[in-house]
């Protein structure tokens, strides 16, 4: 990365959780680091740094991505949503967040922001996923605590509550 220092920083403008930001960064900086260090949005976590664990999942123009694999230059003009942008307000959680609490979908909590983002992304595209679709949609997000059972239950619970 030090080689990046020999090149100059670039200004990148993007919208994060509805707020426009312009950051000065080397073009190969990871979106993950810009979110966590420049914008201090530390809800997005680093688990592996190589796109395997999904702890750093965010939505980029509505698509689910691993922010550790996205160079900052790629997000020019993009719309990004992180875990900090999921709650409806400071008091009111998103249905998926509520469901994670009720069903025990969060244990240690480190995979939870990424898992919640992946689940929200699934339900935005498919409001009534079946078991196989839930498993498939979450297969890019690793959890070591739950064995995934309570996470599946949380997604199902969130669907039901939305219908009700």
């Amino acid at each position, binding site marked *: 990365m030090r080689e990046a220092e020999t090149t100059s920083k670039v200004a990148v403008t993007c919208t994060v959780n509805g707020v426009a930001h312009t950051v000065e960064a080397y073009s190969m900086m990871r979106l993950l680091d810009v979110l966590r260090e420049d914008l201090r949005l530390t*809800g997005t976590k680093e688990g592996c740094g190589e796109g395997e664990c999904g702890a750093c999942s965010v939505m980029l123009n509505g698509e689910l991505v691993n922010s550790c694999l996205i160079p900052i230059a790629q997000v020019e003009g993009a719309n990004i949503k992180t875990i900090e942008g999921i709650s409806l307000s400071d008091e009111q959680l998103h249905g998926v967040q509520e469901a994670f609490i009720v069903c025990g979908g969060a244990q*240690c909590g480190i995979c939870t922001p990424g898992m919640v983002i992946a689940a929200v992304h699934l339900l935005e595209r498919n409001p009534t996923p079946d078991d196989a679709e839930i498993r498939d949609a*979450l297969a890019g997000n690793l959890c070591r605590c739950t064995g995934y059972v309570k996470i599946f239950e949380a997604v199902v619970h969130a669907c039901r509550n939305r219908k009700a």
Partner: protein
Amino acid sequence: MPKHVIGRTVPRKEGRDKVTGRARYIDDLHFPDMLYGTTVRSPSPRGRIKSISFDEGLPWDEFVIVTAKDVPGMNAVALILLDQPYLADGSVNHREEPVLLLAHHDKYLLEEARRAVHIEIEPLPAVFTLEDSVNRREIIWGEDNVFKSFLVDKGNVDEAWDKADFIVEGEYWTGAQEQLYIENNGCIAIANEAEGVTVWGSMQCPYYVHKALVKLFDLPENKIRVIQVETGGGFGGKEEYPSMIAGHAALLAWKSGKPVKLVYDRAEDMAATTKRHPSKTRHRTAVSRDGKLLAMEIDFVVDGGAYATLSSVVLSRGTIHAAGPYYCENVRIKSCAVATNVPPHGAFRGFGAPQSIFALERHMDKIARTIGLSAEELRRRNFIQEGETTATGQVIRERVEMAKLLERAFELSDYQEKRERFTRENDASRIKRGIGFASFMHGAGFTGSGEEFLRSIVGAEATREGRVRVLAASTEIGQGTNTIFAQIAAEALRLEYEDIDMAQPDTANVPDSGPTVASRTCMIVGKLVESAALGLQQTLVRSGFLKDDYTPDEWRAACAGYIEEFGTLKSYSQYKQPEGTHWDDEKYQGDAYGAFAWAVYVAEVTVDTLTYEARVVDFVALQEVGRVIHPVLAAGQIEGGVAQGIGFTLFENVVWQDGRMHNSQMTNYIIPTSADIPPIRVFFEENHAQQGPAGGAKGIGELPMDGAAPAILNAIENAIGIGVNHVPLMPEALMHVMKEGASARG
């Protein structure tokens, strides 16, 4: 009068912070003027350090550089033995041994600098396998490579062989396993002569870190402060190694005078920190024609890696669990933990028991087959009963109904029907189906005299408003400590769950309630939470502020009145060994554990004879864990443990290359994903143990790690007719044994 809080699914205390991303983990914290730290490690598995050199072209004067000569106190991580240095001094004993530390403001430049430090080693012969160590191909530790050995001797094994109708032998192997908490290890330290040393970190045991830093800096206890921050999983992997990282961060902070953050990346965490001990177990069993176990001779060896660390206690738990939930008059267990030139192995959920239980439960199936009984009938004829003794001579004083558990687990899994159907259908199918089970137990709390030695303390403090704060060093690492402690305190005081707060584990503010390990948090520490809370009530009643029978409002008024008059209202409770408990550390005889949890797990598998892929397609986990405090958290513990067990059995293969983990990435060390996990169906039998809190809760955390591996391999044997006696069982190995048509390793 509030409703009962025990047995209710209350929301996790820190749940809201976790689902919103507001929970702050170590890497989320930032201090002004903070430096980043990194570790330069040995390039060689064993040898003498000849020189350390630094590439030209980097601004080395900007870096903080720490080596062994900068250590102000004792250069050893204080744990059980003092053999593991913080920084290698003269020689190295494994490929990841820390030799030098660097810190700098710019973490990218820091990484470049780490690669620009060259440590030249004059190599010495190294030992990489358990067998080479046992055979003393090279002496690499002490006089004989042995960290610790145990002998458990019950009855007279030698006299039993002549009377046996059958003698059944077997050999069983388990591999290393990475804990793979999704949050890597890390600490931040501030350290200077004036203020002493303060460390924030991801950890299970703040007082372990505290003890280690006292020695490392040779400072009084009150000059060291350790604070656990939100911790993203542990599973044993953050029991001991945080003492190392905390020390390294603190050494850099001490030398630089600035805060230092030392957070590992995944590759470093996987390669350098502890993993589950690989093991080898030999069984020789004398059995009568009617299926009674007459004598069990068990040799159990674990690979401890380069330093002693926790190997002696891992070995102890593995040894005591090696004879399982069966009664046998004559048992001899010989065990040892040996040294190899790999990074030290350490605590991982189950702590030796999954290894020895794997061996036993595979062996029980082999015995059944040999003598012509069904696997379940053999076990039924040998299950331990109330009043009988375990291998260490511990009389089981609680109700134990393994046969009933077995029967219920079989009903829940349709075991008999499936077993018959699979046998009928398998011949004609490319996909072979199988079903198998394991029956086992897991002791809660420290082994033997361990709890008596720890003498843990918990505090409870009431506020003027009548809120109660629990003061304990037991950490929330995902398993639910905060939540169940609050439930236990609320129930004891007849308050609402919401009236209870949990103090952050901070050695400056909470007493030492012992490490968060060994399935002890609920049963042992939870009991202390209960008695500390009740202490508040007693104080208020005795001082006349409260009647025996009270409403929450009366409670609040009493707290306000008492604090008005006396200033503070606190109560502490310290562990006392229950009367009649005896343990002999020399003979390894006596009451090994305060209570056992009992279980029968049933696994259903498919084996694809074309791809050699084995999959678990259904899993029933039935256990008796005493009183269930929180049904959702309890089930979550079992589901998570079973998933790790499935990983241990079929996915997680540490590839070693000259003493180094070769596949230290999530890309090539595979843990189960949501697509790999079968339905895990969890059931509890409740039996109120005498010792535990809230009417008898026992330990639960480690139990589910024990049963999956043998149940799955027993099911695979049922599917393909070939027994395999090692885990992990990767498709390549399955292909090999199926092509050979005989069991691997005998």
